[in-house]
């Protein structure tokens, strides 16, 4: 049985007084791709932000890497890569400078950056552009690069396919598969249902702030029931 990486029980997350997550039960295991599906505003993004420790849990319990999210956010974040809807980039800095900043914040050696940039198909010309001049797709590539930079144990991807061309979407799919095979847990929220469902080991359906149900798919049948 694979190791449990994240768990949410009866979770409620409030944005103001609004229950963005009204009832959430969620598990993620080592080395699997978990796909969060559901319409806009159903709580997928909020779950990702919860797992990254960016929003507090109002009720219920949540653990990541076996640590309580309410107590150990900083320790948990060491193992998390998060590609959020917002890019987290500094508009006035170039792509390279943004990556350098992230690398030194993560205490990684600089050479890792070059291979990353190649991998995410960001040509030299783009690397020297300030982030505000990037297209939405290029932005997405840069934030994906930052999210995987530290080889996280838990990779959270919020709409990684959005604003990418087909090549880019394929790249994201390959990326998810590769990291999952290497033992990283990938939790992805996306509107690219077909692509995501094809890769996902398990699918959670979200609606109106609740996890409606879970579907096992593909090779990892039965992974969810311990």
């Amino acid at each position, binding site marked *: 049985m694979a190791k449990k990486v994240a768990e949410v029980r009866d979770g409620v997350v409030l944005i103001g007084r609004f229950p963005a997550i009204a009832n959430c039960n969620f598990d993620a295991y080592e080395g699997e791709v978990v796909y969060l599906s559901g319409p806009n505003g159903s709580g997928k993004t909020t779950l990702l932000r919860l797992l990254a420790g960016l929003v507090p849990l109002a009720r219920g319990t949540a653990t990541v890497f076996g640590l309580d999210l309410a107590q150990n956010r900083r320790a948990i974040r060491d193992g998390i890569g998060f590609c959020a809807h*917002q890019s*987290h980039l500094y508009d006035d800095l170039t792509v390279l400078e943004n990556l350098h900043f992230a690398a030194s914040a993560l205490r990684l050696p600089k050479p890792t950056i070059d291979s990353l940039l190649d991998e995410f198909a960001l040509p030299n010309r783009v690397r020297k552009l300030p982030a505000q001049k990037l297209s939405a797709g290029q932005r997405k590539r840069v934030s994906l690069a930052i999210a995987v930079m530290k080889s996280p144990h838990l990779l959270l991807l919020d709409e990684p396919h959005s604003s990418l061309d087909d090549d880019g979407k394929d790249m994201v799919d390959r990326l998810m598969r590769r990291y999952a095979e290497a033992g990283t847990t990938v939790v992805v929220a996306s509107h690219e249902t077909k692509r995501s469902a094809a890769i996902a080991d398990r699918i959670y359906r979200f609606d109106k702030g609740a996890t409606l149900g879970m579907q096992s798919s593909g090779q990892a049948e039965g992974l969810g029931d311990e």
Partner: protein
Amino acid sequence: MFHDAMIVALKDVRIELRSKVLLNQLLPFVLVVLILFGFAIGTANQTLVQVSPGIFWVVAFFAAILAVERSLSVESDNHAKEGLMVYGLEPAGVFLGKLIAVMVECFAVEVVLGLGVVVLYGVKLHGVMLLILASLFATLGLASVGVLFGALSAATKVRETLLPLLVLPATAPVLLAATKAWEDGIVNHSGIGDPWLGLLVVFGLVFLAIGLVSFESVLED
């Protein structure tokens, strides 16, 4: 902590060098205010020299508020602040880094202001050591309170108007002490034994400590 502080400070200064937002807004603002005070008070007598410490520090205070505000808006664009948290930077380091960057920007403004006062008002600077140390610690106190209150009010839409309302009363002793220290330096030719400098040092260090200790709960809360 110092590693994190350094990279945050370098990043902020680099952003400022790139965008030149403060350069293009603050320096003209500073010069315009200096010239307007010249018109308003008149250059015929010594009044301008006598009030120049007050003018200097009032302008420096407003400039510092703008610098803090800019430092915050950099982090709220693209939710960059969340990036800092996800990268796992130490909150105290983030505080120190932002503080250093704001201080560097404030010093740049203060140098221009000082030159302006000398050139436009004909002020002769005495007790240069006192003036420099007073500026250093006044800016430290001001920027500490500014960054701390800035982070506290970051979540609100009315941040731009709320920030001066919070920071200015809290830093009133800094304005008072810095102005008096400069008066002592310029008019009374005092040295670094000036009691007002002592007050600035105490204020600066106390609020630096509060910021370092409480920034974790402010940033994370």
